[in-house]
């Protein structure tokens, strides 16, 4: 019945029901789940609307899916349902360079938008490391960040309007800067639990006149973190402040030959964008603070090629971890920027306690930690150690006044951790929004909110 109706609404070639097809949509970059009942590939908002109406009638949940690069099970089905893939809604609908904005379908790949805008001297600022494959729709769902959101802000700062399909199947538009409630802000980061975004209008920024990238080395990741805390405390916010520890730097260098030093405890990557006139002063200030806080070397990336290589290495860091261990688990927490050294120290202690290798590659300027716990998933003991140490890192972040996700989201993985940050009243207040926008629990059920009375099934990262 369900499949017949979907076939009728979208045509058979847009509905996948073969087991081998379904399996391909049962995972993301974190985990896998049971296969969905069906996978649909709509081409228009009207088709998405039809899907929502059918799902509602048939009592089937909907799991929206971008590129599947999510790191917390957000796009993974938990109880079957219909996976909505936006692979066919991947057009840039309008590029308005005069007004510095673009209207895009959710399946547009993040980096493609910046590439299209570049000839007009513009770019789309949010740049998650997955930007070569991850989509604007997925970025909107998780309020994706990236290295450059230190000065440009995360996705929510750049979304001007959204078109979404609500629980009734109606196509609704939300727009910033008009009287009324800021539905745009609520939809961004809601991980597909409030509606299905079918188009986004996003702001484009002017490409900066000057960009400099500098590398500093430190004896330890704590020392590098201390320098970052000091740079921020001095009121200096460059466009990116990224740290890579020795484990990560060696893996990245081996994989990409990007120019990262491999004989130090940690590398600090600093990018500053702005006007030519300010660059010399910015460099001397940042370098001075870095040296005062233990930088052993400081060098400048001289050419565009050198800068690109460093960034390619940074953004490919997770992929390079294959050189360290068969598997890694990427944690995402955010702490107050002044507590970075404490947080990094604690992560090191936790890894030692559980006898795990940890690699740290993270958005230090935002206080956004990404410890990668290396392990071999064939060894159940190591799997257990990763789960427990991951939880301990969450607790540490919360104890330091931080939070359980800086940019990856909650998804399925971290929903039980929400109670560590929020009171039942806080969560019940968020749940009111859910009740209004998704009264039948059609959209991505079992995500974000803790399972409550039900016993959570702890799942090993895949």
């Amino acid at each position: 019945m369900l499949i017949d109706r979907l076939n009728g609404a979208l045509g058979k070639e847009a509905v996948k029901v073969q087991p081998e097809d379904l399996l391909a949509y049962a995972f993301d970059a974190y985990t896998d789940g049971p296969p969905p009942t069906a996978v649909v590939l709509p081409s228009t908002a009207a088709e998405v609307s039809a899907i929502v109406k059918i799902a509602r009638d048939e009592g089937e949940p909907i799991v929206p899916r971008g590129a599947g690069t999510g790191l917390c099970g957000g796009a993974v089905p938990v109880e079957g349902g219909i996976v909505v893939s936006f692979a066919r809604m991947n057009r840039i609908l309008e590029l308005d360079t005069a007004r510095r904005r673009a209207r895009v379908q959710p399946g547009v790949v993040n980096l493609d938008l910046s590439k299209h805008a570049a000839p007009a001297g513009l770019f789309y600022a949010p740049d998650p490391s997955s930007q070569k494959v991850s989509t604007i729709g997925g970025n909107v769902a998780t309020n994706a960040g990236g290295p450059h959101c230190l000065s440009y802000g995360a996705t929510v700062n750049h979304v001007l309007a959204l078109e979404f399909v609500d629980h009734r199947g109606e196509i609704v538009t939300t727009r910033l800067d008009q009287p009324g409630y800021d539905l745009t802000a609520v939809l961004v980061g809601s991980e597909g639990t409030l509606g299905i975004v079918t188009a986004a209008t996003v702001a484009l920024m002017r490409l900066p006149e000057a960009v400099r990238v500098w590398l500093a080395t430190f004896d330890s990741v704590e020392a590098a973190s201390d320098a970052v805390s000091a740079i921020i405390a001095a009121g200096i916010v460059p466009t990116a402040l990224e740290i890579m520890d020795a484990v990560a730097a060696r893996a990245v260098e081996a994989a990409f030959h990007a120019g990262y030093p491999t004989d130090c405890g940690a590398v600090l990557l600093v990018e500053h964008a702005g006007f030519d006139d300010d660059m010399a002063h910015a460099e001397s200030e940042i370098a001075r603070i870095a040296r005062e806080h233990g930088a052993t070397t400081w060098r400048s990336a001289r050419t565009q090629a050198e800068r690109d290589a460093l960034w390619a290495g940074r953004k490919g860091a997770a992929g390079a971890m294959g050189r360290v261990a068969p598997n890694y688990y990427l944690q995402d927490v955010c702490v107050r920027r002044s507590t970075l050294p404490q947080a990094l120290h604690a992560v090191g202690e936790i890894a030692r306690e559980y006898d795990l290798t940890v690699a740290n590659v993270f958005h230090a300027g935002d206080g956004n930690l990404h410890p990668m716990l290396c392990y071999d998933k064939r060894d159940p003991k190591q799997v257990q150690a990763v789960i427990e140490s991951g939880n301990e890192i969450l607790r540490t972040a919360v104890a330091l006044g931080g939070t359980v996700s800086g940019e990856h989201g909650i998804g399925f993985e971290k929903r039980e951790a929400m109670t560590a940050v929020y009171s039942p009243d806080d969560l019940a207040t968020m749940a009111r929004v859910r009740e209004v926008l998704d009264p039948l629990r059609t959209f991505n059920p079992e995500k974000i909110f803790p399972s409550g009375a039900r016993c959570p099934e702890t799942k090993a990262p895949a």
Partner: protein
Amino acid sequence: MTAERIADLLRACNEERHAVVVTGGNTLATMGLPPLRSDVVLSTLGLGAIVEDAAADLTIAAQSGVTLQDLAAVLSHHGTFVPFDAPRAADATVGGTLAAGWLGPRRHLYGRPRDFVIGSVAVLADGTIARAGGMVVKNVSGYDMSRLYVGSFGTLAVLVQVNLKTIAQPPHARAFTMRLPEGTRARAVAQWQQLPIAPAAAWWVDGFKGAIDGEDGAEGRMLALLEGSEPVLERATRDLRSAMGRAGVPETVVIDAGARASFERTIDAYIAPVGERSITYRLACFPDDVLERALTVRDLAHRFELRTDVLVDAMNGDAILRVSDLDAHALGAKIEMFDDALHDDEPSAIVIAGNHPKRPLLRVWGALPEGFETMRALKARFDPNGILNPGRFLPGL
């Protein structure tokens, strides 16, 4: 005052269905509609504490009744600021400015006030105390409730505390004024968006005599604010002068001492009334069409024989139109007809100021926004008895 006491008060009012009117510094009291009912007035002015000044994190937590001026004073010790850019900073509160969804002139450069909100404590109509976000600058744990309260006019919850991220104050500021001779207006306004170093603010102004620096030329005047390091300001000044020269503007007056004071005076003018005989509208346009649309509505007002003052934000595309008459009676005789005619041209024009008795009869919120049904449903879930600021915002919210 504490969140708990406000929770007790709201719980009691909710049970008794008493209407609660939430006020801050009352600077934007004539934005939107007057409340339909008012059984209890809840002033946030007792919530005047800085909860945590986390300067090393570039964050600060303030109670909602802290004034913008007091907040700025605390932050200036650390060389930081939050660009609220709202009028009457000595009276305006952090909570009120956010609740009203104020949009200032520097947002194109630094971001909207909402984008500085990283956490909040709010009390819902039934007395639930709800925290959201935190003191970290990046956070995707759950829905962004704090931004939902921004711009909600206190109709979903009462903001008790807001956590903000801060940014470094630019080291130098320089203001400019220039009179626009005949035939230069359109060309001058079109220049600002194209400058390689974007000014922090750039306005075209017609009128507002005494309220804003500078004197009108044949086609009004322009004011601008540049912010940045000294070398950047020097280069931007040269760029700006040559751009204005190309547009036919011969002379530019530089204000170095008091540049920011001059900037703040201009912001104050956005909502400054002419006694009780003016109404001020805001039109949301684009930088490339704002001048034309502002001139069209100015001409429209002149057809009604209304006096006008116009301010155009060339960077964001806001147009501010103040219409006034000889006295309140004279304005009252035509304002409703003008309001109708204005909304025929500009359906989304809103009223942001003006204490005229006929204000409640105007379409102060313009056309209903997209997504309005969803907003109504949210209101019903957050404040089912409609006790928070009834009538103040869009119909039914």
